């Protein structure tokens, strides 16, 4: 069996055996969906839930992706990484297995959020939209997990990792187009939101149901994704020998 898949299955097995982990990561996006999506009095749209769902899906991937690096940190601290590196299978498989695991885990969580959104009355999910959302979320997941594993390779302990994660995650979400459209934002926020990669993914999903379709954003996302994976594997090779 391919080594990437072997590492991926190890992480999946470990994750699914810990029920607390499986559910706890869903609480925050679900809370956003219910308490903000349903309750916030907004004037720019009559279906705020449909507006906010792409943002919450991307938030789910953002949280899952940024937390994902801690799985590599623990492998490093607890000595698993050294054991894996002494195996003859290609060393990059360790990194790619992690990126795959973090992304797939995020997509599974996003699926739960999609179902919840439909149950709450979201109307935007026709089959094409679902498939396209998965594509964008998958790319965004790979981008983030490559980024968070790179941080994990760089820092020495879990506390530093958690600190870096906290400094990056929430600001990225709040300065994106997740909660409101650009035209109701204050000018300073709009400036930030327009270059925020989180907005990039959100706008891309929204553009599917509200043409024109943002081809250029898709290209940018793919390029960012490839660049980050390249950077992360470079760092992996450099820090492991």
């Amino acid at each position: 069996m391919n080594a990437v898949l072997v590492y991926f299955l190890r992480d999946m097995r470990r994750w699914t055996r810990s029920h607390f982990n499986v559910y706890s990561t869903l609480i925050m996006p679900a809370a956003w969906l219910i308490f903000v999506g349903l309750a916030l009095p907004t004037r720019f749209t009559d279906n705020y839930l449909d507006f906010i769902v792409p943002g919450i899906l991307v938030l789910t991937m953002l949280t899952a992706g940024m937390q994902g690096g801690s799985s590599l940190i623990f492998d490093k601290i607890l000595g698993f990484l050294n054991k894996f590196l002494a195996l003859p299978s290609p060393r990059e498989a360790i990194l790619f297995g992690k990126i795959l695991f973090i992304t797939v885990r995020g997509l599974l969580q996003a699926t739960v959020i999609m179902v919840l959104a439909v149950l709450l009355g979201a109307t935007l999910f026709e089959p094409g939209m679902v498939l396209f959302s998965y594509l964008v979320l998958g790319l965004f997941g790979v981008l983030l997990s490559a980024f968070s594993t790179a941080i994990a390779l760089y820092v020495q302990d879990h506390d530093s990792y958690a600190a870096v994660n906290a400094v990056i995650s929430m600001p990225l979400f709040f300065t994106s187009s997740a909660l409101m459209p650009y035209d109701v934002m204050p000018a300073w926020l709009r400036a930030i939101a327009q270059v925020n990669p989180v907005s990039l993914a959100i706008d891309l999903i929204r553009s599917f149901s509200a043409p024109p379709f943002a081809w250029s954003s898709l290209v940018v996302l793919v390029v960012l994704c490839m660049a980050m994976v390249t950077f992360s594997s470079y760092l992996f090779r450099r820090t492991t020998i």
Partner: protein
Amino acid sequence: MATIETTGLTKQYDGLTAVDGLDLEVDREIFGLLGPNGSGKTTTVLMLTTLLRPTHGSARVCGHDVVERSARVRERISFVPQDMAVDIKLTGRENVRFYAELYGIRGSDRVDEVLGVMDLADRADDLVRTYSGGMRRRLELAQALVHEPEVLFLDEPTIGLDVAGRQAIWTHIQDLRRRGMTIFVTTHYMDEADRACDRVGIIARGRLVAVDTPRALRHRLGGERVSVVTDRPVEPVLAEGLHLVDGEGDRLVYHVDDAAEVVPVLLAGIATQGARVRGLEVQAPTLDDVFLALAGRQDDGGAFDFQRFRTMLRRRG
């Protein structure tokens, strides 16, 4: 060609020399690398297992250079670091199968076999969470053996285990050695190294200060002192290898080169005089004495690793 050969193997970190010009040959034996904390044991193992690039010098394992052909080396070795890294949320069998898959081994025969060899067959389907420290270490050995390596590197294999657990690990290691495997082990438990290793190397401040059999090293410090107390006064027993130090009434004290060889002669000599032995004491120089004489007392050079300390305490508790 020896299984492990190093020539002037050196590792420097920011000007600090962790391993300094190591020349060593190890072949089909249990070789113990002994040294105080921070003496360069683990650094040496990391270089030999291709996890760390040497600054100078070279090392060949199974005929392959550890830098130039590191992937080849990794195909023929196994490495068990001291951290005890097994997945506690998986079963013992899953832990071993995971390694088998990474080594590209198909089928479950080999997995069952190594679990059996390590006496884990009846607990193979339990979660590792329920395993004792000794079982976890044996599980790591099972993982390491699944691809039938030629060389096994073990970093502090008995750290944090109870007496029975330690003994089991060494018994397994000696079995592997009988099957022709080369075992390179680091430890700072001198008594264990003395009993189990064919040869030991003592490393201090990155330099190898002695390599020999544990017995020869102990003898370097010079002999043993044998005292015997009898139930009635006896004539001193004189024989080759028995150097009388003190003989007075019912108490005889000798200096000997090898107590195991001459004590039977001494006891026989006392028995022929019709006396009975009430007490016998042999004070041998231990490997501890040798170690302190050769390596001195070295302060831990590295930064104190709190995480590792905590892990160790938890395992002891």
